[in-house]
């Protein structure tokens, strides 16, 4: 079990190194989101943003759960000093957009306290059905804006994108954030 975990750690660190190296020669980095042996979607990231690919745990090492946690890819502008966090992931168990409402209600209070939702909208995003929920909340006694976006990436999977951060950070990176969201395209299948 320990060896498997270590091997996953090594793979994840190598992936980070590869992505960071790739950023120096590419204008925009294309990231393919892979989890549990499936390439689910791809998206574009500005070349001056750091990409953290997250990790996965082999389901066989989980003692009492066959529902492994999904990889969470987080994105951070390298030079940004304001607090902001952007992430994309495709959780197991959320297959249809109709399930996204409950999932967002579950996730939001775990990202921020005193969540106040100020905006909801169902809309097409890059040709796919999506749901946007945004508002404000508190973390470490600071008020942050947040946005959670659910996107039906194929018939049986919903991807999520999240932004949490200072309002000024959102304003500064709004164009890039929308660019990341609009660049999401489904991938075909197994690696």
């Amino acid at each position, binding site marked *: 079990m320990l060896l498997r975990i270590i091997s996953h750690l090594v793979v994840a660190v190598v992936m980070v190194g590869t992505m960071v190296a790739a950023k120096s020669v590419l204008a925009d980095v294309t990231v393919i989101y892979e989890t549990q042996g499936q390439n689910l979607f791809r998206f574009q990231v500005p070349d001056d943003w*750091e990409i*953290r690919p997250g*990790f996965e745990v082999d389901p066989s090492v989980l003692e009492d759960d066959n529902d492994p946690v999904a990889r969470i890819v987080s994105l951070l502008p390298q030079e940004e000093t304001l607090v902001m966090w952007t992430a994309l992931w495709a959780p197991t168990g959320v297959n249809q957009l109709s399930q996204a409402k409950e999932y967002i209600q*579950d996730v939001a209070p*775990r990202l921020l306290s005193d969540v106040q*939702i100020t905006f909801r909208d169902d809309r097409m995003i890059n040709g796919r059905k999506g749901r946007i929920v945004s508002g404000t909340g*508190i973390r470490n006694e600071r008020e942050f804006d947040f946005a959670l976006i659910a996107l039906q990436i194929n018939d049986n999977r919903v991807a999520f994108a999240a932004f949490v951060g200072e309002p000024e950070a959102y304003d500064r990176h709004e164009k890039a954030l929308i660019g990341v969201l609009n660049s999401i395209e489904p991938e075909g299948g197994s690696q």
Partner: protein
Amino acid sequence: MRRLLLGLVALTLAGCTSGGVYYGGGYSYDYGFRYGIYDAHYDYDVDIDIDRPDRPDRPKPPPGTKPNRPTTLPAKAPPRRPSSRPPRRMR
């Protein structure tokens, strides 16, 4: 134990990918937000609270998380000081 392990791995990775040093911007928040999503993942569709007795090995919640918090948003958000900023609309 599984959750504690995941938390440790996330923390380790966060340290590895930033050279072992937390610095400005959202870097110092990366672990906390990831943990929040993992927390929701394991509790998804399960109505439990932090003190669930059949998970005695569950790690402590992130700082600021109140015990016995609801797993869904309340119908009406609790009052707090009004923000001076207008509501944001996604464009």
